[in-house]
């Protein structure tokens, strides 16, 4: 007498009857599905900003590249080196070399004002002076239009992100820097990294345009191998001629993106949590009304011998299916609306704009669907328990 009778078949049947009858409750079902879709879309949408920003920053730094700043500096803006120091650094063992010498680029970093295409308002755009080794240090760099600037000339090439976000950066356009006009001669990509937000020129030319003498702000170096970093960093910091701070590029960009990523992630979770609370009530309402509308039906099934455990599981399954439909809808919407959506934002460490693309990653979609599942389960649990606890005899007479 105790053997459970086809428990899984009971659950499947009850859930199927519920979903079949969902059409009769289409307004509240649609409200729940759309509500959950909204939560998931907003959650994924907001977090795709930080995922995209983070991706742009981490795409910039590889593990076998290092950045050297003056001791105590958190960014290039507040760092500085003389010519002699950059030579000592370039000669330190551990730096990779090619036929022209060490892959070490002493660089200058200034900010110019350019209007954003979207708003027309001025924004801080980084203008970087580099040495010839810069192209070896950042090996993902590719000229996509025009050509490389000529060394020793007032010419610039522009990162693809900067060209997209700011006006007046097309190939053939002229940039007013100091008292000179600087032609834009090329556009480059850098695997979506932060360099794409920058304008590049010859460091020597930039030094004279900005009266910087023979000074630099940072050194970008490619190491012989990722394992060479420790010895290289130790050698530099132990050198009494230098006062430097050595970081892996990946670590440097991670630090740079940390503040913004953390802020956006916190906001994303906060907004999604508030919306999810609303959606849980929506799901609760739908499932309570589903249970209320089907009181007699559920009681009939229980009178026929369907178990109350099967009723609970089936109703939660029904709620879960609605939540998953909402979750899939929300994930699809956010992917269509946000993935690869280009934007620019302030990097608060360098006080300049970083261009990046929102990234709706598989991990974010997974998290979004997990939220939907949680909403569905919480929203289904209490109505399901209520349905299973209703006295059968009384519920059978419900109209």
């Amino acid at each position, binding site marked *: 007498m105790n053997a459970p*009778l086809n428990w899984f078949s009971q659950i499947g049947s009850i859930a199927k*009857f519920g979903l079949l*009858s969902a059409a009769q409750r289409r307004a509240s079902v649609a409200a729940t599905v759309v509500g959950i879709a909204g939560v998931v879309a907003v959650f994924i949408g907001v977090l795709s900003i930080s995922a995209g920003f983070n991706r742009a920053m981490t795409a910039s730094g590889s593990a076998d590249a290092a950045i050297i700043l003056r001791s105590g500096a958190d960014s290039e803006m507040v760092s500085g080196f003389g010519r002699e120091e950059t030579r000592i650094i370039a000669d330190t063992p551990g730096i990779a070399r090619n036929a022209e010498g060490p892959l070490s680029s002493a660089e200058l970093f200034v900010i110019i004002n350019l209007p954003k295409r979207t708003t027309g308002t001025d924004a801080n755009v980084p203008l970087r002076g580099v040495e010839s080794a810069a192209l070896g240090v950042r090996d993902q760099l590719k000229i996509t239009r025009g050509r490389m600037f000529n060394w020793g000339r007032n010419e610039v090439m522009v990162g693809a992100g900067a060209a997209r976000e700011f006006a007046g950066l097309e190939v053939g356009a002229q940039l007013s820097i100091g008292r000179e006009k600087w032609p834009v001669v090329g556009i480059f990509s850098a695997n979506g990294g932060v360099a794409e937000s920058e304008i590049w020129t010859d460091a020597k030319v930039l030094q004279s345009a900005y009266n910087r003498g023979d000074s630099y702000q940072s050194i970008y170096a490619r190491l012989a191998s990722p394992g060479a970093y420790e010895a290289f960093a130790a050698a530099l910091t132990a050198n009494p001629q230098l006062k430097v701070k050595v970081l892996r590029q990946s670590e440097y960009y991670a630090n740079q993106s940390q503040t913004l990523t953390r802020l956006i992630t916190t906001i994303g979770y906060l907004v999604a949590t508030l919306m999810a609370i609303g959606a849980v009530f929506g799901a609760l309402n739908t499932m309570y009304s589903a249970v209320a509308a089907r009181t007699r039906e559920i009681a009939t099934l229980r*009178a026929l*011998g369907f178990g109350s455990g099967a009723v609970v599981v089936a109703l939660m399954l029904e709620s879960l299916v609605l939540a998953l439909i909402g979750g899939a809808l929300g994930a699809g919407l956010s992917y269509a609306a946000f993935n690869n959506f280009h934007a620019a934002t302030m990097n608060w460490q360098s006080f300049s704009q970083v261009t990046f693309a929102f990234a709706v990653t598989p991990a974010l979609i997974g998290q979004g669907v997990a939220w939907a599942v949680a909403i569905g389960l919480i929203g289904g649990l209490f109505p399901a328990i209520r349905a299973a606890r209703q006295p059968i*005899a009384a519920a*059978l007479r419900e109209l």
Partner: protein
Amino acid sequence: MNANGKKADPTALVRVEGVEKVFHRGSEDIHVLSRLDLTVATGEFVALMGPSGSGKSTLLNLIGGLDRPTTGSVSIGDDRIDALSDRQLAVWRARHVGFVFQLYNLLPVLTAERNVELPLLLTHLTKAERRRHVETALAMVGLTHRAKHYPRTLSGGEQQRVGIARGIVTDPTLLLCDEPTGDLDRKSGDEILNLLQALNREQGKTIIMVTHDPHASARASRTVHLYKGQLASEPTP
């Protein structure tokens, strides 16, 4: 021993002994059944009659394992069902009881044949075996031609016949009918009563039917009257 000091017939299929049922509403206790005894033999067709609130539906629910008595015992065959857990009762109902409800209680999203199949989903029958049982049950109630119809396209009488087919499809020990003609016109009601009578006489089904309609109770082999939770009179079989 029953309330009258007599030992209940041990061969009876249904043995209700010394049953009391008290419902609590706030601080008030409502005694719906008081020290009630009833036996029903295998193959009987018993009508439970009485005014509203007399406890006849409550008694039917106790016999059908949908509720438990406050005190006393309910035995069906060899099973003391008042001692079973909820889970055991659900399994017991699936195996031993067919229910027919006043408002038919069909699932609107399922066709007549799928509604009839419902209790069979709790058995270990194959799909083909279930189909055969459903066809037989629908043939017995004369609704083979309406098998693919949804409840909303069936008349009240037809819906109740689907309800009866669902009640008998597992060949239960007991068929319990709660006002089966209460929502039907006289003609449809008569058809249903004919059907129940045929099931009792030809198939030997033990049927207990709650009704307040003397016309309906006249079809039963025995009528039991309830008044204020007690048997008003019980004609000797």
